[in-house]
């Protein structure tokens, strides 16, 4: 439903904020947009929503080109800009009413749609207070309510959970997940757990270019820790165990961690597999065969933050 082709944005002759980005987002898909600050996430979103004109490339939403038919395209999009701006002197009710008028929602269904958006974003308690006086969390939710008011097929949200407390984050993620099957959604975030929690796919951009694109699982598979095994054993057998693990054919490396004082009698190992293959069954069988008591044993899926760091800085540790 969203097609981005070779999008480029230059500011002046020297700064290239977005450098040839292409991707598609289909119905029912939630795309997480990741990248360090200044990587070009917001600039890309601003071009998709028609706030900035691209230097080159095309943006199409449900077949509508943002440059050829800006109004028609904007009608199909719900957009939460960075920082969730809203007119500070208005109350949420007045503000949503204004959005409904501008979006030409028929008068008959305005009340109903506003009520629905208010319920979904849990705004009812602050409807008559000036937005200026609301907490950061409520302001963010006013922005969300504005974006989903006209039930758009395409939702674009720049850091939708920024500034929310853990409960509110949870609520917003649930809301996004509930709406997902009917829509194409792009969210930008720098909270990596969020990608794992709600995104079907993640794109990491850096210096205006896509450096990774895949499902969260596929991205985590690129992690050094993918299929690594964490195992905790009694400290008295630590030395023997370390040598034995290192001697195993599929173990590439072993890291030994000293646990805090409270558990001084225990030692934890991280075992890294060769070629990212699955290791946990083998290790389990091995320790059982030796009769070692295992206090902890689990396989890691991989670490998104590690992949993020390695693709955006080249740092692999």
């Amino acid at each position: 439903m969203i097609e981005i082709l070779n999008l480029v944005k230059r500011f002046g002759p020297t700064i290239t904020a977005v450098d040839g980005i292409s991707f598609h987002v289909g119905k029912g898909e939630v795309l997480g947009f990741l990248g360090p600050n200044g990587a070009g996430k917001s600039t890309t979103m601003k071009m998709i929503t028609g706030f900035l004109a691209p230097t080159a490339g095309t943006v199409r939403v449900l077949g509508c080109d943002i440059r050829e038919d800006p109004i028609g395209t904007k009608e199909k999009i719900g957009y939460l800009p960075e920082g969730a701006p809203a007119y500070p002197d208005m109350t949420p009710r007045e503000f949503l009413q204004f959005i409904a008028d501008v979006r030409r929602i028929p008068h008959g269904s305005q009340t109903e749609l506003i009520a629905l958006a208010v319920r979904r974003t849990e705004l009812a308690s602050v409807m008559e207070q000036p937005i200026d006086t609301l907490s950061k969390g409520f302001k963010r939710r006013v922005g969300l309510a504005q974006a989903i008011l006209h039930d758009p097929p395409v939702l674009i949200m720049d850091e939708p959970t920024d500034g929310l407390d853990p409960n509110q984050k949870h609520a917003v993620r649930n809301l996004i997940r509930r709406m997902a099957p009917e829509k194409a959604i792009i969210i930008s975030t720098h909270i990596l757990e969020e990608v794992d929690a709600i995104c079907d796919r993640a794109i990491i951009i850096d210096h205006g270019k896509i450096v990774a694109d895949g499902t969260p699982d596929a991205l985590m598979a690129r992690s050094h820790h993918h299929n690594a095994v964490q195992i905790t054993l009694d400290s008295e057998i630590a030395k023997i165990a370390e040598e034995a693990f290192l001697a195993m054919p599929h173990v590439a490396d072993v890291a030994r961690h000293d646990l805090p004082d409270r558990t001084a009698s225990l030692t934890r190992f991280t075992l890294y597999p060769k070629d990212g293959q699955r290791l946990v069954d083998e290790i389990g069988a091995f320790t059982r065969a030796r009769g070692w008591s295992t206090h902890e044993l689990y396989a890691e899926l991989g670490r998104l933050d590690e992949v993020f760091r390695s693709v955006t800085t080249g740092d692999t540790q």
Partner: protein
Amino acid sequence: MNRMLAVFRREFMGYFSTPLAYIFIVIFLFLTGVTTFYVGGFFEAGQAHLQVFFLFHPWLYLFLIPAIAMRLWADERKSGTIELLLTLPVPLWAAVLGKYLAAWAFTGVALLLTFPVWLTVNYLGDPDNGVILAGYIGSLLMAGAYLAIGACISATTRNQVIAFVVTVVVCFLFTVSGLPIVLDFFSAWTPQTVLATIASFSFLTHFDAITDGVIDLRDVVFFASLIAVWLFANGIVIEMKKAG
């Protein structure tokens, strides 16, 4: 059209949801009163017309209108709501016009509230109300021209103070371009036709013509085209900022 109306309504109500509107109206009424009755000597003149009331409007507008216009776009830029407004399905012309008309309507309200002056002159004497009506129309047109200049300049910056100062300067040049202060500067080295052109941009000349009671089409066209040109420039400025 109803999109423009929605922008207009929001902007217009915006004035009244903050103290700005009330402060502006009070100051405007106070200053028109002071200039008419004390500086202008309305009673001493003993004449049943409002010439002296309108005489000071260009000078009041010079400072008061930029104060209204400065927030039009600079404020939206600063608070980030411009991103919201321009990503809503609103054509650019509707956003520019809706906001501008709201500010103009607001100054219209302030101008209407000077009606006690009109009541006074009608109570005291027997003025030509046609001339007074022409004066009000001229004053409103001139306010509209100042506002259009201010709206365009406000779109170029996110700083309201800069918008205010630059607008005052540009408005001042337009106000006095028919006076010796500007013409003397050019008269030594420019041909007569250029001089006449510069002089013809003076708000004072056109405004005085209207307040004399003659609504000449040329004066109306002058203000109307000036408003159109500055609003068009306003749209272009926003388009250019969009292109980065």
